[in-house]
């Protein structure tokens, strides 16, 4: 045994032996829970549960109290009473004195807790702490007795070193105490702020498709903060004993210098990490969870998993043309029907509106309405306080971006975006729909609900119900309509921008229906037909044939064909946007699906289709991790799994043909 080891063991043993009555007292105290079921006023439960519960509670309390009192006195009292010289006058290194004493304090505290538990363990009442302790220590995972023991040992170690440092500092009563207080408050303030920022940024509770699955980053940060504090305190008190030796004042000075010169830079490092954590760019996203394009212009809202940040899911508004982006807190707000709530754009693409958790810590469930003028470079999001909460189930923005509506708590609420003023709030009764969407205008709000009993295993037709509720904003009157239909496969409902028409799509049918009554207007096609509303309300329908694809332009009022564009040898035609009423931009790709993207400009008035240049599009890693370098290019393209379609957003001012 080396000299240092011999000294450590001697000191450790002596400190234990001097307090040999403590374990005996703990063992005696352990007998109390055996009688606990006989005591009145305790929570009900089986006798075994009561015994083990009381024993566990007592054990934790005893060990905590001992960790505090022994940690605070084992070195500090000897120093204060000038008795540390007993050790220092002998061939024991300062490190061995420090380690022996603190290890003895921790061992006594932990051992006493274990001894309190021993009697109930002996009679077979094994406490199951997972019943009482769950989220607070592990952030979700349920903690068994071994897990609790390890976590508790960590707590005891920390309490011992904290109490030791406090004991030394308080016993000195020197002016250095002031410096300690200042340094402590600065450190605590920085760490607290960082943890709060991280929590608010979503590092605390990561949601994955609406379910909180992990608090990874905050847990790691918490563990690192714990480890740093423990190490800094241990190093500081070791230095205090090794360099300050029997001199309390000198020891205090050494302790403070080592402690704060470790903790202050560490807390600044945490601040730096927090700053870095909070400021990812869209390029840092390794997997994009959802993208929403603006109806016009090149802005998109996207949201995904950031690299090296645990499960952190930041949201961005990105101009796919210029690469300019704005960090937002959407995605943290809420999830609706399994989809994150991203941004909503006005029809002209000039205004983005979204919801973010309120900055007010006292209203953690409240959401703020954020608006951003996208046409003004340098504009920053403006929050407006509204009465929306995380529990909302549907949200919609009017085409002019001035009105917003939401379904929340069984009510349909309408508000002015600029002021947040509530314009209407009507009860919807017990209505609940599997899919809901809103079309908002200055005069009315349309709420569409779609319900079906379809599951992917079903091969037969099933009943689909489309419910339409219309709120007249002038009268405040709510009228309802409902249509039923037998359909095959998954069914979706897409309303036109103004809400006068809608497309009901099933696996084998595509129907044009009236937006207010739900009545059938026209059957547009069968299997494989894809259709969408252009911003001006006309319908773009894509038919894929053997020799290429046809893009048909339909009148939404009747479903009659207005124009047809044939693309021979083309497999994919995507309508990008409609820069002017009679001009539509589309991109195509050859039959293999690997050819370069090609730009087309379609003149709706003349039926002329002009081939533009090849396009360099950035493919977004939608719901899969993949490389993507830059948003600089002719635009972005991604396959939207939610709606099973490929979406393209082009930058303005592409050279036309």
């Amino acid at each position: 045994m080396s000299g240092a080891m011999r000294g450590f063991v001697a000191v450790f043993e002596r400190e234990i032996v001097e307090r040999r009555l403590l374990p005996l007292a703990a063992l005696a105290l352990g007998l109390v829970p055996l009688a606990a079921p006989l005591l009145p006023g305790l929570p009900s439960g089986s006798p075994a549960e009561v015994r083990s519960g009381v024993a566990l509670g007592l054990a934790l309390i005893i060990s905590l109290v001992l960790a505090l009192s022994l940690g605070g006195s084992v070195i500090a009292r000897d120093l204060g009473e000038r008795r540390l010289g007993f050790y220092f006058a002998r061939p024991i290194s300062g490190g061995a004195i420090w380690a022996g004493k603190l290890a003895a304090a921790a061992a006594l505290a932990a051992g006493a807790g274990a001894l309190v538990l021993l009697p109930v363990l002996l009679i077979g009442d094994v406490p199951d702490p997972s019943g009482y302790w769950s989220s607070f220590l592990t952030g979700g995972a349920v903690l068994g007795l071994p897990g609790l023991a390890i976590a508790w040992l960590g707590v005891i170690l920390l309490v011992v070193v904290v109490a030791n440092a406090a004991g030394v500092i308080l016993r000195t009563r020197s002016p250095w105490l002031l410096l300690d207080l200042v340094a402590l408050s600065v450190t605590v303030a920085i760490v607290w702020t960082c943890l709060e920022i991280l929590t608010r940024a979503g590092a605390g509770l990561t949601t994955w498709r609406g379910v909180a699955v992990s608090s990874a980053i905050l847990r790691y940060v918490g563990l690192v903060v714990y480890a740093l504090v423990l190490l800094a305190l241990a190093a500081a008190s070791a230095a205090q004993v090794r360099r300050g030796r029997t001199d309390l004042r000198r020891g205090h000075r050494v302790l403070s210098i080592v402690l704060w010169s470790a903790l202050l830079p560490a807390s600044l490092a945490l601040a730096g990490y927090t700053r870095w954590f909070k400021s990812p760019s869209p390029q840092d996203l390794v997997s994009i969870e959802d993208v929403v394009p603006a109806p016009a212009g090149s802005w998109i809202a996207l949201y995904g998993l950031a690299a090296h940040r645990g499960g952190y899911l930041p949201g961005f508004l990105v101009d796919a043309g210029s690469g300019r982006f704005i960090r937002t807190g959407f995605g943290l707000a809420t999830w609706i029907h399994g989809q994150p709530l991203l941004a909503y754009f006005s029809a002209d693409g000039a205004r983005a509106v979204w919801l973010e958790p309120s900055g007010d810590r006292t209203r953690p469930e409240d959401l703020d309405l954020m608006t951003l003028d996208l046409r003004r470079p340098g504009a920053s999001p403006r929050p407006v306080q509204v009465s929306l909460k995380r529990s909302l189930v549907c949200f919609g923005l009017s085409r002019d971006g001035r009105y917003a509506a939401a379904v929340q708590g069984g009510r349909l609420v309408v508000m002015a975006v600029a002021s947040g003023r509530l314009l209407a709030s009507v009860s919807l009764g017990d209505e609940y729909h599997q899919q809901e969407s809103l079309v908002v205008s200055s005069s009315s709000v349309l709420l569409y609900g779609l319900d079906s009993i379809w599951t992917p295993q079903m091969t037969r037709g099933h009943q689909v119900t489309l419910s339409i509720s219309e709120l007249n904003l002038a009268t405040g009157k709510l009228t309802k309509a409902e249509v039923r239909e037998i359909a095959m496969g998954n069914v979706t409902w897409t309303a036109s921008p103004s809400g006068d028409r809608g497309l009901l799509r099933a696996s084998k049918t595509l129907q044009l229906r009236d937006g207010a009554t739900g009545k059938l207007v026209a059957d547009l096609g069968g299997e494989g037909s894809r259709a969408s509303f252009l911003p001006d309300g006309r319908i773009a329908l894509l038919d894929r044939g053997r020799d290429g694809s046809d893009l048909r332009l339909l009148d939404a009022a009747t479903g009659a064909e207005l124009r047809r564009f044939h693309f021979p040898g083309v497999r994919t035609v995507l309508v990008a946007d409609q820069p002017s009423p009679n001009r539509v931009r589309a991109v195509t790709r050859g039959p293999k699906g690997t050819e370069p993207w090609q730009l087309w400009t379609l003149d709706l008035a003349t039926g002329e289709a002009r081939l533009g240049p090849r396009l360099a599009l950035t493919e977004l890693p939608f719901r899969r991790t993949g490389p993507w370098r830059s948003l600089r290019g002719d635009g972005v393209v991604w396959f939207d799994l939610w709606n099973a379609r490929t979406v393209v957003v082009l930058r303005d001012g592409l050279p036309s043909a």
Partner: protein
Amino acid sequence: MNPVDSTPPVAPIQVEGLTVRYGARLALDNVSFAVAEGAVYALLGRNGAGKSSLVRCLLGEQRPAAGRVSLLGLDVWTERASILVNVGVVPEDPDMPPAMTSRQIARFCSRLYPSWDTPGVEARLRRFGVPGDIPFGKLSKGQKGQVALALALASTPRLLVLDDPTLGLDAVARKAVFEELIGELADRGTTVFITTHDLAGAERIADRVGVLRQGKLVLDEDMETLKHRFRRLSFPSSGKPRLEALAPVAVASRGWGIEAVVANYDEERLGVTGPDGPEVSALTLEEIFIALTGEPEEGGK
């Protein structure tokens, strides 16, 4: 012809330029001295002269602002733990854990030293009359000191550091302590560094003396030469004697004449002897100490 004069290569205690500051106050001011192998060095000083600081630095408990202390050839601040295997320490205020009995303390200490004399501890405690199974905190002051000495001697040290081991002890206990110390010196020739207020005791066993005054080492000399050069001169007449050559340290006018203490007595230089000359007497260590440090020492004999 002093047997300790044969200087060994490394002095067991070597103090060089030791300076200790508490804020602006100088507790030790550039103190240097050495203690040779086998020597008994007595450090004297009034309370607050810096003895405690010096002992703390000597044992590596305190780091000096400047200067260096070597014990047994090694730097005591950096090598404290390994040096102290060979050093027995009796602290001024015995600081053993109050709840432990002397026997338990002895058992604790025995594990820390390679050569531990267990029968020796028992024998000494018996000679002192200290019960081995009473908690240390319940022993009298004298008994505590005796336990500390018994433990210090049990490690068969090469060097003993005794910080006022007889402070507060009655005459019998003091004699017992000195007897043990003398026995140790006779048996093992241990080097001893002792600070004490017991000047009569120190006078008989120390062969070198240091005197601290206000943090400065004002004297560091062999006992024999020290006693040889100090004399008290009593002049019967009130005529002004010529003492400059004898380095007077204190001259007092009494009713019957002049009394002077000189630090460099020399019969020939004094010149006058016989009936006209002064009465010359030697001084005890205590008298020399008082002459050097100004006022009577409290707690002294």
